[in-house]
């Protein structure tokens, strides 16, 4: 076992601005607290639709002083668990556009492998700043909820060539839709893949931007297809991180089990809770974490 003094030397200890600080615990206390926090993250993530992955890394690094690389490894693992665990529920509804998903996965997996390579050479303070910006962006997007846009059926050259157009079940029978701006969506997904690997998040927020806003997929199709892709994208970089020693069992196991249980419970009680209040709570948490991450990034103390 390492002595405490050695551990403290490497990271200049800058106190958190607002958040509490749990340092110097035994493994059992660490596991229980991390599992509890991860459970909350998974629960709120599922209830608000924002995903829990985005708060796992700030929680581990800010509250528990876990090195950013261990935190990213553990978070990616939890992202895979929630994505795969939720898949069956989504599949039953029959909204996923498998062709769109697999095509865009070419972009996200290449992005994820490049992101994993970049993560090895990027200073952690830069990653903290980038993380803070993504958290702020998430908060802004959650304050202004997305609006359902009109469906387009105008043919698109790429969409026709790749047979991406499809239908989805709606109240009035099968509804046809046409996929727009395929190259632009592909490029955005490449960025989503890089961010996913660099920060250990699902980057659902960028994926929705690509599929909802750019490719103009119907709301439910983009949500379920995005879920399909998040697990695959995270698996690409998680494999690399496992080999690189970023995935520590003591950190990853309470995170994975906590987030998974929270997300599964969240999906079950979704219809019984007031999502609006929860969304505000979650947005508040995300903003506080964003400020802390930016502060730590700019003071170079993460």
């Amino acid at each position, binding site marked *: *076992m390492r002595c*405490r003094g050695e551990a403290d030397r*490497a*990271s200049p200890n800058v106190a958190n601005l607002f958040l509490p600080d749990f*340092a*110097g*615990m*035994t*493994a059992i*206390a660490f596991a229980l607290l991390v599992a509890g926090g991860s459970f909350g993250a998974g629960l709120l993530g599922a209830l608000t639709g924002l995903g829990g992955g985005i708060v796992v890394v700030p929680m581990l690094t800010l509250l528990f*002083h876990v*090195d950013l690389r*261990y935190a990213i490894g553990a978070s990616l*693992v939890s992202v*895979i*668990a929630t994505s*795969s*665990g939720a*898949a*069956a*529920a989504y*599949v*039953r509804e*029959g909204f*996923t556009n*498998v062709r769109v998903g*697999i*095509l865009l*996965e*070419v972009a996200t*997996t*290449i992005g994820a*492998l*490049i992101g*994993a*390579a970049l993560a*090895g050479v990027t200073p952690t303070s830069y990653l903290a700043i980038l993380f803070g910006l993504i958290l702020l962006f998430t908060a802004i997007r959650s304050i202004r909820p997305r609006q359902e846009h009109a469906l387009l059926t105008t043919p698109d050259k790429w969409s026709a060539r790749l*047979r991406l157009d499809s239908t989805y079940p709606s109240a009035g029978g099968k509804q046809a839709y046409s996929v727009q701006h395929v190259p632009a969506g592909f490029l955005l997904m490449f960025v989503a893949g890089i961010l996913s690997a660099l920060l250990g998040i699902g980057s659902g927020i960028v994926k929705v931007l690509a599929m909802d806003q750019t490719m103009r997929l119907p709301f439910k199709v983009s949500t379920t297809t995005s879920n*399909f892709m998040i*697990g*695959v994208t*995270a*698996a*690409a970089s998680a*494999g*690399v991180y*496992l080999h*690189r*020693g*970023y*995935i*520590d*069992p*003591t950190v*990853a*196991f*309470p995170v*994975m*089990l906590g987030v*998974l249980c929270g997300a599964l419970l969240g999906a079950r009680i979704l219809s019984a809770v007031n999502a609006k209040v929860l969304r505000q709570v979650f947005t508040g948490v995300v903003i506080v974490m964003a400020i802390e991450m930016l502060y730590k990034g700019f003071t170079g103390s993460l």
Partner: protein
Amino acid sequence: MKDSPPRVSDHTVEQIVGRMLQLGVLIAALVVLTGGVLLLVQHGGAPASFSVFHGEPDGLRSIAGILRGVGTMQSQAIVQLGLLLLIATPVARVAFTLVAFVLQRDRTYVAVTALVLALLLYGLVFGHA
């Protein structure tokens, strides 16, 4: 889409894949839970210090090393095996999607899916990026 009648519908494939994924996550979670409980029983009193990155030892980051550790009932290796199974579930999903496109004789998407699968296996098996 139009000509081959005995084709497997996208929806049937998705149903099977969805169930498979859930089962994969369940098995992975049980293995992780077993390893995690064992880990806390054996090393629960040790100080939890992760503020300095050391990288995992070889036995916890290569597939062969993890399997060796599981053979000797090492708790940390059992957790890693569960995590490895978890990482493998989306890979299995892509592999299954590939089979479905082969059955549908959809050449374009067989190629696209094979590329995604190759990228995933590359990361998982070789671990280079």
